[in-house]
């Protein structure tokens, strides 16, 4: 398995997303293979990669379950307006950014309950693929959750980056951070909606520079309302 993952992470760099056979799309989110640290793939040919990890107080099984329930993704993923299941392994994603809507379909490629999920887009406005791995942390401290996400800088990038101020790689990092907050505390830290004095031009520019104009996902509040 480790050998396959490593080979595919490398060859996937030279492939067009969505064009290859499903097996060769398998990505390697693994950080360690055969006792060696594996760095994340580097950006190449218009493809961007980001790998990010968190320690979550919780069981791999439960965290896998929370991630697997894709229709709840809008609770913790930034700017995801809705996710609808369209088949056993497929779902339709709608992303609402400050300036427009992106829609795409996604397909689950590999699904190992309690351990790993991988997916790729299969048409629409976004070309992306990713994998999440859940593994027990040493010392019984919880679960290491590692995400490897790959995407092409197309409409998704312009929608994300130029218009909302959130770098798409950073969005992957933020989404995992928010997944952790939701899993550990039942809420996502929130400042939008609190009072402040007039921001003025300088304050507004700063706020955008800090990506504070990206809507904060609702956490469980949406379930309550």
């Amino acid at each position, binding site marked *: 398995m480790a050998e396959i993952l490593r080979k595919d992470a490398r060859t996937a760099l030279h492939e067009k997303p969505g064009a290859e056979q499903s097996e060769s799309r398998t990505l390697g989110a693994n950080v360690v293979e055969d006792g060696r640290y594996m760095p994340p793939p580097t950006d190449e040919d218009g493809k961007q990669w980001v790998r990010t990890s968190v320690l979550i107080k919780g069981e791999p099984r439960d965290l896998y379950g929370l991630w697997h329930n894709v229709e709840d993704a809008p609770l913790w993923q930034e700017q995801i307006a809705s996710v609808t299941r369209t088949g056993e392994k497929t779902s339709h994603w709608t992303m609402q950014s400050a300036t427009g809507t992106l829609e795409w379909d996604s397909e689950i490629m590999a699904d190992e309950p309690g351990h790993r999920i991988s997916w790729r887009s299969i048409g629409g406005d976004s070309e992306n693929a990713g994998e999440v791995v859940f593994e027990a942390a040493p010392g019984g401290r919880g679960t290491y959750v590692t995400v490897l996400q790959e995407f092409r800088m197309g409409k998704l990038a312009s929608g994300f980056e130029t218009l909302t101020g959130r770098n798409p790689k950073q969005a992957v990092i933020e989404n995992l951070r928010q997944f952790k907050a939701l899993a550990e505390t039942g809420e*996502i*830290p*929130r*400042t939008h909606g*609190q009072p402040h004095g007039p921001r*003025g031009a300088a304050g507004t520019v700063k706020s955008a520079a*800090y990506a504070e104009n990206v809507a904060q996902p609702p956490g*469980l509040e949406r379930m309550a309302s």
Partner: protein
Amino acid sequence: MKAVCWMGKSKIETLKVPDPVILNPHDAILRVTRTAICGSDLHLFDGFIPTMEQGDILGHEFMGIVEDVGRDVKNLKPGDRVVVPFTIACGQCEFCHKGLWSACDNTNPNAHLMETAYGYSGSGLFGYSHMMGGYAGGQAQYVRVPFANIGPLKIESDLPDEKVLFLTDIFPTGYMAAENAQIAEGDAVAVWGCGPVGQFAIASAFMLGAGRVIAVDRIPERLELARSLGAITVDYTEQDVSVLQAMRDLTGGMGPDSCIDAVGLEAHSNQLQGVYDKVKTMLMLETDRPIVLRQAIQAVRKGGTLSVPGVYGGLLDKVPFGAAFGKGITMKMGQTHMHKYMKPLLERIEKGQIDPSYIISHRITLEEAPHMYEVWRDKKEKVTKIVIDPWAEKAA
């Protein structure tokens, strides 16, 4: 409601803003009954802390009466009187489990800003820049408190607000500074800075067994308060006073067992290096003025401990790390793990071991706050600590 807003460097205004509302299941809304200006708020006033935005509500020291709670807050109900820690902690993450509350993973929505500068982000703080979360502060009539299920300490006795208010920051901060100083019975402890945190560090050092406390400052009223606690004071601006010489003279030539830097990044000096740091920060070649830090590293005895409750923000120049290594010293520092200290310190207040209100010099209204920021910055009117009653119409 009325709130004290940061409107730019050296520009603070009391403005009408909307009331806060519950945004998350573990939120509470407080009606603020007392709040205070912290010495570290002066770093914001002076523009030393990046990522402030015009319109930010200031204030991280406050207490009040619970007005409303989110649906998952079971430990508080409207009408409860609480003191709120200035650091926000979730209580569930690895760091909260370890008791490193100010390193909480789940309370800073702008963690990415701090990760860029520091590698990892600490917890969110009230009213202390967007890098620290961008939370609205408590120098206001109402405030929203996230994770009210974890942070706020209920005050069930009839102690007046002023006696318990400083559990919100400066008393625990001074206490942790003394704890970090690893004081053994009879130790000599030197404290730089006799502002509020320095005062509580001195008081706490004695509580933890210090045999001698040496206090360094230049403001007469602060030195007087320090002497009232039993410290020996050194005014570094007096003619012929060398702080390093004084430290040797007062410790049998050995140096203090522990040194506490309760000054931080805006230290003053009457020596040439003070000018050096001022010029370098003005030219943006350095962000902090580590004058006290340098002196404390020089002063501490071999194998001694340096504890730093004073705030540093960025890059420091000419820190004598060789001296630190050469003497084999221990350094401990950081934002206070508030949640660990509030309850035991409340017990000390209840038992009458300390009355933290002794440092208060000024009691003011929200409208007077902008002016008092200036007064305190300029060290006028013998300010030692300013407390605000957000509902008072004129000065008490």
